[in-house]
């Protein structure tokens, strides 16, 4: 582009042609920026400090909960309670007490084996 067309006079669009308006606009911006900087320099209040701590902790807790839930879902439902086994052991203990002796290992094994359906 060796022979560039001559520039067009755009000075009619120069904001400085209205110096008071332009200076007012600059001043308003300067004030707004000063307020921003002041806000940045202000030490955080207790609630903001708390919020700063609470946010990551809550996020971590949510992730942990999610992981626990996923693990539980993978492992299946918890083992069902076994009331009959407890009852049989209680009955065995009761009869042993009445008989005035301790239940033998064979008797305990028998009671437990019955639970397994053997």
């Amino acid at each position, binding site marked *: 582009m060796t022979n560039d067309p001559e*520039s067009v006079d755009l000075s009619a*669009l120069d*904001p400085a042609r209205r110096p008071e308006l332009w200076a007012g606009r*600059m001043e308003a*911006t300067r004030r*707004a920026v*000063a307020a921003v*900087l002041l806000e940045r320099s202000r030490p955080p209040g207790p609630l903001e400090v708390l919020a700063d701590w609470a946010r990551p902790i809550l996020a971590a807790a949510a992730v942990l909960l999610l992981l626990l839930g996923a693990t539980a879902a993978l492992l299946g439902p918890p083992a069902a309670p076994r009331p009959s086994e407890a009852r049989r052991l209680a009955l065995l203990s009761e009869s042993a007490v009445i008989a005035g002796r301790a239940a033998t290992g064979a008797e305990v094994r028998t009671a437990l084996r019955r639970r397994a359906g053997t």
Partner: protein
Amino acid sequence: MEDSDASLVARVRRGEGPAADRLLERYFRPCRAVALAVTGSEDDADDACQEGFVAAMERIDSCRHPERFGGWLLQIVRNRARNLVRHRRVREAAPLDAGASDGRSPAADLEQAELRRRLLAALAELPEVQREVVLLHDLEDWKHHEIAKQLELPAGTVRSHLHHARRRLRLILGREEEA
């Protein structure tokens, strides 16, 4: 020696108001030129550059390359201006300089307002990037290499945009005069 953009940005991050003032003085006019290129309205451009500059100061920590602050700022202003255009408040009804005289006679004011209207109408016929280049070069006196750096364009592309923009503006304005 002039402070670099990077050092001024570092000082703004430390909360130094004078550093922000220096950036304002350095970039407010170019911001306005970019906003004007997008909006085609001086009032909207004034709003967009003010809002954009304040937003940039609020987000100064997210300026990842402080040495390229100018380009980053102009992009924020450009986005603001585009938003303004999208949600444009109806301003067309108001004359360009309602209540803002340049201190001339009413006839001269009218002539200036007409000239501004013609210039803005002619600029509106250019692609946005050409408007930005011609305003930054011919109104803000930026050099080719400065425009290339801040707009992240090759210098040859900037020259080409400027050439086409000027030629087209001359053509449009000449056509109007003939008419």
